[in-house]
């Protein structure tokens, strides 16, 4: 293949990201023309707060997708994390300890996902569909089916604190993305995620323990989901039981919007953040315009299909 053809391919990869960025820019321009309140810093904090939880979840989902997997259980792990955290707080346990315990349980759930997928050889989609249903059940059992209200001041600390005017969940979101960017780029774990996702057989033959990587990734995914649940519960001052249903697929949508491939081995974590941001802006903008919020789903669906279409059309056009 000639050098010219190769540069074309590089441009193509960059170009699909450019499509997503232009969609985002276009949305911001349109919304700010239509609504005078859109382009204000407080509105962006509000967008940030809305997407913080989905953003945290999407990190884990992105890792799973890059690995060539899929984690359906993150939504109900989020709900479960919130409920466990709330129950522990109500039991009078120090808040910091409740967080540690909740995260440990979350990690254990993901570890189970990993074991089921690697050692019991169940396909990731089915394995996490199963655990998702189990987590769903646990949420209802632990909450008796209704929101768990917590009236303790420290419980809402994460959700309500601002540092230098910036809401803490947004700061956490940015730090986590930076951290996982570094992990993917500079650590052996990050590299192995890309290799195993790109070709598990080749990785295995090259001496990589593919099972351990898979277990690590699903553990991280659940851990992040449980943490998302803590942040969410802290913002509302209560653990909601119904939040789990849409988050898993929303996080996949965001990751795909950000250019992470379903086939594994490819993708950039900042792309995923971009995807999350698009979803947040869309939702916020429509609310600003006084459009019924249900339309956001229709808009998100259209944007997703357009974004992916632009990538595949580009591939064919060569």
């Amino acid at each position, binding site marked *: 293949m000639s050098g010219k053809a*190769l540069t074309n391919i590089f441009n193509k990869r960059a170009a699909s990201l450019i499509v997503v960025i232009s969609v985002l820019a276009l949305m911001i321009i349109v919304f700010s023309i239509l609504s005078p309140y859109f382009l204000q810093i407080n509105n962006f904090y509000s967008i940030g707060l809305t997407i913080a939880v989905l953003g945290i979840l999407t990190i884990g989902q992105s890792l799973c997708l890059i690995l060539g997997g899929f984690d359906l259980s993150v939504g109900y792990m989020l709900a479960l994390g919130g409920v466990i955290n709330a129950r522990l707080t109500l039991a009078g346990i120090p808040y910091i300890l409740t967080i540690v315990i909740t995260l440990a349980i979350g990690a254990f759930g993901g570890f189970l996902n990993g074991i089921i997928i690697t050692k019991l050889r169940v396909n990731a989609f089915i394995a996490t569909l199963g655990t998702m249903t189990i987590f769903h059940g646990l949420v209802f059992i632990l909450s008796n089916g209704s929101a768990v209200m917590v009236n303790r001041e420290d419980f809402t600390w994460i959700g309500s604190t601002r540092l230098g005017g910036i809401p803490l969940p947004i700061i956490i979101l940015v730090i986590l993305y930076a951290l996982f960017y570094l992990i993917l780029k500079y650590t052996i774990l990050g590299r192995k995620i890309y290799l195993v996702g790109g070709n598990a057989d080749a990785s295995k033959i*090259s001496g990589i323990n593919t099972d351990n990587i898979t277990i690590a990734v699903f553990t991280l995914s659940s851990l992040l989901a449980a943490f998302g649940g803590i942040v969410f519960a802290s913002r509302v001052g209560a653990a909601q039981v119904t939040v789990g249903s849409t988050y898993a697929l929303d996080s996949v949508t965001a990751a795909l919007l950000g250019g992470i491939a379903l086939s594994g081995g490819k993708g950039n974590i900042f792309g995923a953040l971009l995807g999350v941001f698009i979803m947040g802006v869309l939702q916020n903008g429509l609310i600003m315009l006084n459009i019924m919020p249900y339309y956001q789903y229709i808009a998100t669906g259209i944007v997703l299909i357009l974004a992916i279409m632009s990538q595949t059309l580009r591939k064919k056009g060569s």
Partner: protein
Amino acid sequence: MMEQILLKMENINKSFPGVQALKDVSFELNAGEIHSICGENGAGKSTLIKILCGIHGMDTGTVSINGEPVHIQNVQDARALGIAYIPQETQICPDLTVAENVFMDKIPRNGLGIVQWKKLFQKAMEVQGTLGKCAERIDVRSYAGDLTIGQRQLIEIIRALTFDAKIIALDEPTSSLSKGEIKELFELLNKLKVTGIGIIYVSHKLNEIMELCDRVTVFKDGQRAGTQLVRETNVQTLINLMVGRSIDLYGAKKEKIQGGQEFLRVEKLTSEGKIRDISFSVHGGEILGMFGIVGAGRTETSNAIFGLDSEAAGDIYVHGKKVKINSPQNAVKLGIGYVTEDRRGQGLVLCNTVRSNVSMTILKKLTKLFCMDLQQEKKISEHSIRQLNIKVTNDRVMAENLSGGNQQKVVISKWLCTNSDILIFDEPTRGIDIGAKSEIYRIMKELALGGKAIIVISSELPELLGVSDRIVVFRNGQITANLDNTDLQEQDLLQYAINY
């Protein structure tokens, strides 16, 4: 008998973005002729066939059949003109029956649109009957997915016959066939040829071309380098045409290294249903060839050595010490490297860069305190590219964009940077062009001369005889001979591989 020109393609030009794939190419096919198109990868042979079969459009040029100019816009046009294409990877539906696969779009139905199964099977058997004994063993009611690769190919040929194909183009048909299947395929093609069908045979296996074909057209860099009658040419002439220069494929015979240490010894390696009582050893400085027909136990043996077969039992000694290898990780740690048969499936991470493919075996070594030393990684991969002369603009190129030969070199470099002492090459030159082939042979010899122990598995006898110091022959999961490669002839090895 007057030779009747069946197909004429003249002044065909075709370019893809950045590449002129065909330059003013002309090609002729007679009725009742097997005409080979050969050339290195990227020489344009597949492009020409795909234009003929309506898969690609051409930029300029004319095609005529039986003297009539034709316009082929798509696959349907080609079919209507009686042109059949048998691709390298057979395209069958594994969960449908053989008969359904054969008739595909012409499955007999009654007035209500309900499939008439009896009629379908009957018709399938009729076509099958015309093909003779190689087709007899196939049950038209069985599922296509249960067939061997050779039989699947047969289905495609039978399918071609159902629409009265006059021209059948086969793209690298023997690349995954066993010796026996190749023989059957050749018989069948010879039979079809007598009926007046013109056959285009794309291949770069020169010995097959010499055995089967009537004429051969050699492509080089998108142009026709020459057309010759097979009975008037020889392998060396064809090679020279393909590469445009004289090339000594296997190079000088490697000098034997005496008194090398024993690096790997295998004793009574057995895996139920695959291999039985396999014992052999390889020394530093030695190239050990492994010959046998597909499925005779060669790849199964190397998989067992490399920890990929959990049922294998037996003793393995590395540098004289008895070892346990339960997983590839153990094998890699012991200094064994494995260039697998399936380069794309098991060798490379295609969607990652050349650099990260080269370094994937040494990630631990590249890590200092949690962080990978990306500078060091870059240095190592650039060094590998120079060392093995890998042709890429830079090492950030995705592995999928490299040619077969260069991909193979990337796989080899990933084992060279682990400093493995024992390297297993399984069919290392499959599907790569002649220029790259001779480079791979040179690399293997240099590695052996540098003190490494090399095992080469191959189904190509000239290749094994050209590079090995010693050859073990496999048959039905056992080793039937262990021979020094001095004055060995192809027949000697074949005899052990087939019966003894």
